[in-house]
């Protein structure tokens, strides 16, 4: 498992791992997706490519997750596949695959910076992310 939910009294929090930064970004998006278990709707698929920036890796991680939430809420789409095409410490280019959702989209308000630090571990990188729900 590349992410696990950890206790948080009011909101939702995950510890997320990745062998490298690109994998951490993808796994963080999958962790966020796990909070919205929306079933398949059978409606046409949606494919988007996006570019996101941040002043450092932590900011890029939060901005990436919030960009996904923004797109889901404004486009009425739900994404379940996240492919990082290119990433540096301050920029990423990614492809999102999903579908239109007529049954409502995410209930997450935002990914936050609370206690966020991307740390090196023997296996790669790890971060704890708190979502406001």
């Amino acid at each position: 498992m590349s992410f696990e939910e950890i206790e948080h009294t009011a909101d939702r929090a995950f510890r997320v791992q990745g062998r490298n930064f690109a994998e951490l970004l993808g796994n963080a998006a999958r962790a966020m997706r796990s909070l919205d278990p929306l079933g398949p709707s059978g409606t046409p698929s949606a494919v988007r490519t996006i570019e996101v920036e941040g002043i450092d890796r932590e900011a890029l991680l939060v901005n990436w997750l919030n960009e996904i939430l923004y797109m889901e809420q404004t486009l009425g789409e739900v994404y379940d596949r996240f492919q990082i095409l290119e990433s540096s410490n301050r920029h990423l280019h990614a492809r999102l695959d999903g579908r239109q959702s007529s049954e409502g989209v995410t209930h997450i308000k935002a990914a936050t910076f609370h206690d966020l630090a991307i740390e090196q571990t023997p296996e790669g990188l790890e971060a704890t992310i708190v979502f406001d729900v």
Partner: protein
Amino acid sequence: MLGKHNFVCVAENIWEIPSTFRDDMRVPARVYADEDLLDAALGDNSVVQLVNTATLPGVIKHAIAMPDIHQGYGFPIGGVVATRLPQGVISPGGVGYDINCGVRLLVSQAAVEEIRPFLEEIASALYANCPSGVGSRGHLHLTNTDLDRVLQEGSRWMLEKGYASREDLDRTEEFGRVPGADAGFVSDRARERGRDQLGTLGAGNHFIEVDRVAEVYDQATAAHLGIYSGNVAVQVHCGSRGLGHQVCQDYVSRFQKTVRDYGITLPDRELVCAPCDSEEGQEYFHAMACAANFAFANRQLLTHMIRHSFEQVLAGQIKDFELRQVYDIAHNMAKVEEHEINGHRIRVCVHRKGSTRAFGPGSSVLPEDLRDIGQPVLIPGSMGTASYVLIGTTEAMQQTFGSTCHGAGRVMSRAKAKKMVRGTELRDQLRTRGILICAGSMGGLAEEAPVAYKDVSRVVEVVHRLRIGRKVARLEPLAVIKG
């Protein structure tokens, strides 16, 4: 590890962590709680979060936590932090993503026994007429000009359009319009997220609740507010929806660089801030005020639809079912106020995150008919439990920047509540207690189970005994509408 041994009991139910506890603290941190509620606060990370807020530049007097304190992100929920202007900071994280999340209370002169035969129909009408749930859309289609006016005028725009009465505005914090709103500082993304959400409840802990006035503690004050034992009341709890979430995101993201520019060092990046009177601080304030106005307008439009629902079901059936507004309060907001500190009137930016303004008698910002008694304070309980009407006090003005608690406060995570409780079973249990539930998501219902919250009566008892809010009446639920 932070524990009870780090606190000094400075008075009954007031616990202080001295500013010497950590090198970066600028003021002491205070928790208003009895021993059990303090133990509950120490059960998660909330007290560390409170200590972190005591490091903010310009923080004055104490960083304060109410008895409903629990872990949030950046600031704890149930926190009050004031910074001295002009140097003191304003922090978007100190307001949170749901800017001006708040509560409105309406009361009727109809007795519960009169409406009881129609309760199921009323609950269904409310559920049908008041859009709820994730991604719910409102009935109003707003042009860009309309949206600008909502952002800058709040409930006043609703009055112009016939969705509010003059009395509604008089009985709303800031009269339903936070001054300083400038729509030019609200991003296109925030507009896009909020455009079709005006008049929607959302999900999570937001609700509409039909209540019975179960007990009145202060007959004179309650009568002044139109609250009588045995009558029907309605509460609305919601905020600024996607628009507020995006405003907060925009500025938390932008201020990551701003703190570096100002050389501000913080223990948590969610606490990012800017000097309140700086260009950046003022830009956030203008945008936050817009989101706050959107939230006032949102609760006002929902009020219109609640009244419509009552009319739909009760017209021709019973008399005096009209709903009059007791008050509307914000519990996530930053406001510029003047408070007396050590004998001096000082201009401060008060962050209330999960806490309620509770101005006492004599406050010039209250409408004339409330100046003698103080500001009504609305404390919703967890689903299926009591809620309270309090009144603001002079002691709150002296001790807590005119603030008090905001609710029961969570004590169990959403994930754990969902594992412990089945939504359908909870709905059925509440029904056997005479409480109707209309909810779009049974999982969401389980997350909000009463077992996940502290005892609201205990929280209210603490603020009542400390005199930072005085009990007026208790409400008990009859029907709950949730997303």
